[in-house]
């Protein structure tokens, strides 16, 4: 089900995304209306990763920011990956639990903020509830 809706997203929207800093991501692969940090997603929300971006929060000056980004990438947070927020700790979702590529990870807020994602509309979503369903019917 979620795969189908992911496909609709890919077909339905073909506008360009802002270029992420770290990776030379092919923006046409990861269509989106706008990119958000993963940290902003609510529990239960699903999204497609569009890329990784440098953020503040790894304050140290030893280059561990790059280490964090490289490890996020190795864990599967790469453009096109489908992810879903499983849990968020009170009060501000630090840390949070995210499922990506079939594996589940606990990420701090600062780490999740480095992952740029595009929200996937879920079936009971607000105003576009019908649109994805129609598209998937057309696909089938």
């Amino acid at each position, binding site marked *: 089900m979620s795969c189908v809706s992911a496909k609709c997203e890919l077909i339905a929207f073909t506008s360009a995304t802002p270029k992420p800093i770290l990776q030379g991501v092919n923006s046409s692969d990861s269509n989106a209306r706008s990119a958000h940090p993963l940290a902003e997603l609510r529990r239960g929300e699903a999204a497609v990763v569009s890329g990784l971006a440098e953020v503040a929060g790894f304050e140290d000056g030893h280059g561990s920011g790059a280490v964090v980004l490289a*490890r996020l990438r*190795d*864990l599967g947070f790469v453009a096109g990956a489908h992810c879903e927020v499983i*849990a968020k700790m009170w009060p501000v979702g630090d840390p949070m639990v995210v*499922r990506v590529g*079939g594996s589940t990870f*606990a990420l701090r807020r600062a*780490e999740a903020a480095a992952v740029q994602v595009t929200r996937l509309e879920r079936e009971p979503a607000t105003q576009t509830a019908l649109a994805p369903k129609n598209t998937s019917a057309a696909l089938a």
Partner: protein
Amino acid sequence: MDAPVSTPSLRIALIGVPNCGKTALFNRLTGSRQKVANYPGVTVERREGERAALDGRVLRILDLPGTYSLSPTTLDEAITRDVLLGRVADAPAPELVVCVVDAVHLPIGLRLALEVKRLGLPMVLALNRMDVVARRGVHIDMARLASELGVPVLPTIAVKRGGADALIEAIQPARWEHRRSIAAPAWHDATAEDAEQTQSDLRGLLAAVGYAAPKESHWMARFDAVLLHPVLGLVVLIAVMFVMFQAVFSWAEAPMNWIDGGMAWLGELTAANLPEGPLSSLLVNGIIGGAGAVLVFLPQILILFLFILALEDSCYLPRAAYLLDRMMGGVGLSGRAFIPLLSSFACAIPGIMAARSIPGWRDRLTTIMIAPLMTCSARLPVYALLIGALIPATAVGPFNLQGLVMFSLYVAGIVAALAVAWVMKHFAGVRQYSPLMLELPDYQWPHAGNLLLGLWERVKIFLSRVGGIILALMIVLWFLSTYPAPPDGATGPPIQYSFAGRLGAVLEYIFAPIGFNWQISIALVPGMAAREVAVGALGTVYAMSAAGDDVAGQLEPVIAATWSLATACSLLAWYVFAPQCLSTLAVVKRETNSWRYPIIMAAYLFALAYVASFITYRAVGALA
């Protein structure tokens, strides 16, 4: 038939991401024929084992620490990379790499496999948990995977008997001999382009083999909804910890009584059948009385380890780390520190070594420095003895007062640890960001075989301690407290005239302000080598100072009769803090690679212990 002249064995290394079933596979391959690198004197923690290959030669199998990537973020991961590259002094590069990949989480494991393959070492890929992935309706085209990857791919089910047969068939030394690489593996640090290349290779592979991520199973999602909940999850965590510590006391009671009874019987039997003299005294007072007093605590230690192993095996611990990350962050610790700190409740040494999985030197150092404040199992004998002797077993609500006192001692250690961490956070200067990024693996039932193997390891270590260092110390102590014999016409108990008695008299000057008598002062000395020895030492000292023929097993009533409550409480407080274990300090020296930190640790722990005991002694004395 004819003995092979050339090198008869094949060095194999198992590599894989954490929680891919690599260690279970290692156990499946080697059974109990494994050496787990023991604490002092080893520079690299290694699990190594042997098994006979189908062609009769020997496979020497190394279980490398799990890693997500060859670009390390922790010391553990760096060790894995360095062993593969042949950079570790006494661990030559493997002749065959078995890359273990969890079929359920194919992408993350396959990405590592691609990275390893680039090193150019001979390699096979063990696709583990094929049964689970089939149940979840995901098909993986293994033939295609093997041809695309260019290495043999073998299905394994590490937790099932016979689940490694295909792998064993494939790793016969004769088949790999000609592939032995001569040159060291090619290596350069992965660049962004390398990473991009690996990712696109990975995408191609996953598409070729027809992999689609399986949905999280329904019951797992249900479990996570509760166990990861900000409130319910914490409630469950506290309940689990509480049950664990209560179980250590209630379940262990019966087997402890059996061991105690057995030791007393053995002592009486020995005393009855040997002529009175030095030999009888050595056997009854020194060996049976001393070592036996420690042996009694084996059941408690095993129950504690059983819980920790089961929690580890069920993959609950990373979830606890997630729940606690925010709170522990308040005192400057990573949630990741929860796992090493929990194992420090069994023993600080594996705890300190497990701190290697914490990225960031500052966080790791803080975890190492506070690990000895977690109440380790070697303190249990001392606590149990004193509580049993002086605290009544009255019921307080549904709980037992003895259990509650024990619980509060554990809490005291934890609170002190958090306070020390907080102090270190505020005085330790610039901190390096230490990421969490922790995988929460699928829940699984603890595997009985793995639990038994883990417990067996603990039994072996404990018994070899009792039979080795503890026994030796008991004999030395027996000698010191027996000789020289008292002069004719002496009135006091004979031990007062012995070497130990004189030493105790000197130490008493230092320890009198915190309420320790000379017997305790003596017992603290061998207790430096191993905390639990203090109990045996008290057993020996009191047995030697008794006029009649009181033997082992009689320590509790003696303490109840001769110690004040203030003294006992003061000793309990001392044991919460004191750095009474030289092997812990040795392992800190090794892990931090400097004398500075073990010295700082010993100093601060001694100071804390003395102050805490002083306050406790005065406070309880004033109240009583």
